[in-house]
């Protein structure tokens, strides 16, 4: 099904978290898995080129960097979705935006230095698009955030 073999799978499972912070991280991974550094580099380059890997890097907690994050939802008429998405996506703090089937049909995440700024931006979005049904749903408690997928 996937254009990856068992070795690729093992490497991918190994590097989704706890990527080594050592001078030659790919060598550490290779030693870990009984492979050669060259093999790991070649396989990862291929997986990257095939877009199975989106990126390798750090993921941060917005609140620890002095930012706030939230989830917003909007009721947007079908024929205005493209225009609405364009307006919303212009903000660099909007990192995820999906059309979903529900009465609130557009769902996007928003990160900014303050909730006041997010509310001001939502106000501006409403004025520019004419979409007035936008709800702001900041998390009051985080039970789980996991981004590791066992392949």
């Amino acid at each position, binding site marked *: 099904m996937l254009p990856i073999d068992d070795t690729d799978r093992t490497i991918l499972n190994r590097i989704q978290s706890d990527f080594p912070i050592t001078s030659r991280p790919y060598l550490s991974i290779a030693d870990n898995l009984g492979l050669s550094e060259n093999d790991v580099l070649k396989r990862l380059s291929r997986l*990257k080129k095939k877009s199975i890997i*989106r990126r390798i890097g750090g993921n941060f907690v917005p609140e620890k960097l002095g930012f706030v994050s939230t989830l917003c939802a909007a009721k947007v008429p079908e024929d205005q979705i493209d225009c609405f998405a364009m307006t919303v996506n212009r903000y660099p703090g909007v990192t995820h935006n999906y059309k*979903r089937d529900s009465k*609130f049909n557009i769902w996007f995440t928003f990160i900014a230095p303050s909730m006041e700024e997010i509310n001001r931006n939502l106000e501006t979005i409403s004025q520019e698009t004419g979409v007035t049904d936008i709800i702001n749903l900041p998390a009051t*408690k985080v*039970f789980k955030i996991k981004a590791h997928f066992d392949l």
Partner: protein
Amino acid sequence: MLTKLEKKIISLIQGDIPITEYPYLEIAEKLGIAEETLLETLKSLRDRGVMRRFGATLRHQKSGFAANAMVAWKVDENRIDDVGQKMTSCKQVSHCYRRNPSKEWSYNLYTMVHAGNEESCREIVRNLAKETSVDTYTLLFSRRELKKTSMKYFSTP
């Protein structure tokens, strides 16, 4: 809270690190700092919990998780910690948050569920509902990706 150097390092490490023998050396050279300083700072950011995760982000659709559903649940506030905890123990649940309900949208607990197809998602959700005895919920499958990116903190325009 964060030093100038930490912010500079975050602005680079939030991107994509090179797939080469000495990726950190390349980044350190870009920043004009010693490789050792970069490694120590990264470890500190990780140990302080500023960096939640360091590693590869995969494209789910391409790695065998074609379907993802956001599930909004309406849970009795007295039970919400208990229900939230239960939901997190399910492997297919990647995110679980409590959010305030509003007039137009009365749900207060949110989970992301990932599986190979929609039917599997539905089945996982049916089981979660049964295990937690929460029967008011709605599944919101994503129908179109309008944007998916990573946040760029402290990037100089």
